[in-house]
């Protein structure tokens, strides 16, 4: 590999434990008299603990600490300003738009995307030729990177060359510049989100549907239940664990939406399509406002943790 040489300067001491631990691994089998558990505890756990602590847990704690400072990232953080970053954040109109947009994305995911996914899951679960092909096609957008999907749709929405523009002119409308319009840009983004993610939820539902005992449907048939009655009385209740799971992923995914917004609108026009993470990127990272950016991270963290725990309390009791 040609690139392997260029790795050398970037190699950190952190990787060593993982790489080294395998060499003594073979030998230590014979040394079991020293104690069976010690070698494995000493060799197998530290790499994971070290990596996870250093790059996941500590940064979260540091975000909380840095959020109390006005800091450009150089030197030490010494300009303590208390909760002023949070106050600034709260007063920022763009951040409130971002919060609203994140909320809107969650609402659309739950109210539009999940029913759509469930409907399609029931359709492709019928015994019909070609069902597998449709499943794969519907899952395809989920496999593509958000960035690629965003760029593709940036073209589709393009006012000069895009599909939406040519459809509009075919129908005799004025060509819209969808992504440049403050009022409709966010809806255009929402459409792409549904396009990208419904297939994932559909796959979850297909798996859920398959685990439903078919004799229940036969029993319902004998009772003379209609298709809709079977759906509401058998399918929906038995599918509820899957639905809760799907809701959870929709919410978590909505909160961290970033990759797709950047190629589509970059948060514009005039901040109308910001999400929390694009806001963090635009106002925290590109301007190296570490304190302010960390405050946004803390807010996002609190929202995620609150939702995760609240969700568990409310919905996951029986699981």
């Amino acid at each position: 590999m040609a690139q392997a040489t260029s790795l050398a300067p970037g190699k950190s001491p952190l990787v060593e434990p993982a790489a080294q631990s395998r060499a003594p691994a073979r030998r230590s089998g014979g040394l079991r008299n020293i104690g069976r558990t010690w070698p494995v505890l000493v060799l197998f756990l530290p790499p994971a603990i070290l990596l996870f602590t250093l790059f996941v847990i500590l940064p979260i704690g540091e975000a909380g600490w840095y959020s109390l400072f006005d800091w450009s990232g150089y030197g030490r953080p010494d300009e303590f300003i208390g909760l002023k970053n949070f106050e600034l954040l709260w007063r920022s109109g763009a951040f409130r738009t971002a919060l609203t947009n994140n909320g809107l994305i969650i609402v659309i995911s739950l109210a539009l995307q999940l029913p759509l996914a469930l409907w399609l899951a029931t359709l492709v679960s019928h015994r019909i030729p070609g069902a597998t092909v449709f499943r794969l096609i519907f899952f395809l957008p989920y496999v593509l990177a958000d960035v690629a999907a965003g760029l593709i749709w940036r073209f589709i929405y393009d006012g000069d060359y895009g599909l939406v523009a040519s459809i509009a002119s075919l129908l005799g409308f004025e060509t819209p510049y969808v992504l440049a319009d403050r009022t409709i840009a966010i809806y255009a983004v929402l459409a792409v989100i549904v396009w990208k993610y419904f297939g994932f939820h559909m796959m979850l539902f297909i798996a859920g549907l398959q685990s439903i005992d078919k004799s229940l449907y036969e029993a319902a048939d004998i009772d003379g239940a209609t298709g809709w009655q079977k759906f509401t009385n058998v399918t929906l209740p038995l599918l509820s664990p899957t639905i809760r799971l799907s809701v959870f992923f929709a919410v978590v995914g909505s909160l961290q939406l970033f990759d797709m917004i950047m190629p589509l609108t970059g948060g514009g026009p005039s901040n109308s399509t910001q999400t929390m993470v694009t806001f963090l990127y635009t106002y925290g990272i590109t301007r190296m406002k570490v304190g302010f950016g960390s405050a946004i991270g803390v807010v996002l963290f609190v929202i995620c943790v609150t939702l995760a725990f609240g969700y568990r309390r409310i919905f996951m009791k029986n699981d």
Partner: protein
Amino acid sequence: MTDLAATSGRQPGYAESRRRPDFVTQLYIYGSLFIVAAIVLVPLLTTALGGLKTLGELRVNPFGLPTQWQWANYGDILFSSRYWRMLGNSFLIAGLTTALTLAVAAMAAFTLAHVRFFGAGFLMNYFLLGLMFPIATAILPLFIRIRDLGLLDSYMGVVLPQVAFGLGMAILLFRNFFRNVPKELFDAAFVDGSGYIRFFWYVTLPLSRPILATVAIVAFVNSWNNYIMPLIMLNSQDKYPWPLGIMVYQGEFSTDWQLVLAFITLTILPTVIVFFAAQKHIVSGLTAGAVKG
């Protein structure tokens, strides 16, 4: 666990619960499916075909086949070092991320699954914390940490945080699988005088191919598609993986949509090919990764 790989209908269930639907129902089913499939595919096909047109034709004929097939759009990109370097970078970063995730997570999960020690339960919950929040929450302190370690603008500066953030899910998947390794095997190995580490290497890992594949797919795909981590950590364009490279390219040729479209098509092509070639593994891998969470 619900076996998502069994979508082809090996399990008796919903699919078999119904006889083949009658004609009207079939019409409704196929009508709906074709409409949705068109909505999914038309943007993708337009992108691929758009890369074969001239800019002028793109404006008047965005839907149809090109009148003159501009293979040069694709050819120029395929013969540019830029395209290959970008994919190479992505491949290297994703490969390193996958290898490290497998090694580190499998070892930790093995210990958590089989060795009884003080604090094991606490440690498992500690790793599961990583599933609760997105990377973005701590991205600025992470940037500063990577900078202070001198890893900024290096592949490892992207790889290590990616591994760290993938650990929670990987350890969870591994531990659940490892716990099902029959106890008898373990006792037999101990009688033969082999310790935990030998057991891990010679028994657990060979038995765990399916879960190794699942975790590898999740790690590789996440890294391959990751945008925010390299965006923050890398500065020099010659180290950019494809999601960054494609954005740079779009910025350079923003008005030449035909080139951008060809570029997009060629960069998503590896994903699409691998997806259709290994669809069963990928679908079950990606959904299982999610379901277990």
